[in-house]
């Protein structure tokens, strides 16, 4: 018998996804950032609340997405994969806001508005908050009024969900032609916000985090929005 060979079309596609790592086109890296982003956002908001006494400073960054609830809230409790009937999609809806609570079992996956991306987390991970807040859940398919939440069998979870409108401001561009602001449905700008160890808030080049290499702890530069003036350091842990 000959050696089995992987479907050449699929093989090329996998190779292409791997070759794109380290570039802005990498869907794998966007996927990973989404999964981490939920946990990071919770930490970020908590830190901002401590520093500012409740005022969240991140609202001033260009490219920010504003999500406004639309229509009625749907709630329910489920186990394993389930569909949620959200009612007819209202005009102007761009996403679904979801608060999903789980504390035991396996993983839950929620599709988000950007094609091919989703948020995945492990319910039994004790360092996570029990409730995951998602503002960019994907709308039902055209003609449908339900979304499906994928969960491992035997994983209990509850949800409140509501349609939302979704608007984004433009990223800004510095003198060097680099865009800066927060990642949104349009992708990621060249410079994204980060808080330096000295407390100052500036911007990092996301690609810098990859330059440190395997198993290395270190730090990368935090810049002004000009992308050249260094104002502090951003720590990179060994995970």
């Amino acid at each position, binding site marked *: 018998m000959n050696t089995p060979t992987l479907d050449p079309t699929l093989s090329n596609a996998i190779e292409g996804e791997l070759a794109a790592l380290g570039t802005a086109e990498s869907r794998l890296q966007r*996927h990973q950032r989404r999964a981490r982003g939920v946990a990071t956002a919770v930490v970020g908001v908590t830190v901002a609340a401590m520093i500012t006494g409740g005022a969240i400073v991140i609202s001033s960054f260009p490219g920010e997405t504003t999500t406004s609830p639309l229509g009625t809230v749907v709630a329910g409790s489920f186990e394993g994969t389930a569909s949620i009937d959200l009612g007819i999609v209202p005009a102007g809806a761009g996403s679904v806001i979801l608060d999903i609570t789980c504390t035991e079992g396996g993983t839950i996956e929620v599709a988000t508005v950007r094609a091919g991306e989703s948020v995945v987390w492990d319910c039994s991970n004790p360092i996570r908050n029990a409730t995951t807040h998602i503002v960019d859940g994907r709308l039902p398919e055209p003609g449908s009024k339900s979304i499906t939440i994928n969960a491992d069998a035997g994983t209990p979870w509850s949800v409140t969900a509501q349609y939302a409108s979704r608007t984004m401001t433009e990223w800004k561009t510095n003198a060097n032609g680099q865009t800066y602001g927060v990642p949104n449905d349009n992708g990621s700008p060249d410079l994204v916000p980060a808080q330096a160890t000295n407390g100052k808030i500036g911007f990092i080049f996301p690609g810098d985090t990859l330059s*440190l290499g*395997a198993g290395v702890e270190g730090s990368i530069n935090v810049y002004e929005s000009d992308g050249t003036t260094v104002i502090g350091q951003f720590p990179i842990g060994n995970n």
Partner: protein
Amino acid sequence: MSLNLKDESAVWGHACAGDGAAFAALFTKHQSRVYARALTLVAHVTNAEDITAAAFFELWRKRRSVRLVDGSVLPWLLVTVVNLAKNQRRSAARYRRLIGSLPRERVADAESIAVTNVHTELLGVRLTEAIGRLSAEDSALLVLTVLDELSVADAAVAIGIKPGTARMRLHRARQRLQVDLQAEGPHHNQPIPEGDRA
């Protein structure tokens, strides 16, 4: 950048530094072995394809904790294939949408179909049944040592346990499979060799 694949540990260094071309080169080098092993562990060609893709995506995601064996990532990839095959539902969830969006011809070659239809045996037990009965680590230990012919010491490195622990667990895993065989009756009663490599 040109990559000398003879020095795989150097390629791995580039990969860990975020070089996509290095991951692509490792995929080109090892995809056949990874796919062939996946075919023996699951019932459908499509599942084996999904596991192959997921194994290389995991290689990237877990790059900071990957253990090279003799300077190669292949043993780690094979361990990951066993783990992915053991828990297809859960492991597929992480990359389901990404893998689902990858284009395919959807016409499996005859050899792939043949491999999934010919039940590979592990010590006289159907491989798919064997890994269903054993823990992920024990399954990986048996697959690496019996089918992929790694030494116990190398398999232990790939899995991340001590060689002594690996030997003990291999012994118990063999015993367990043998007990299960005897309980099932005469159609599966060939003796289980301990093997010199263990």
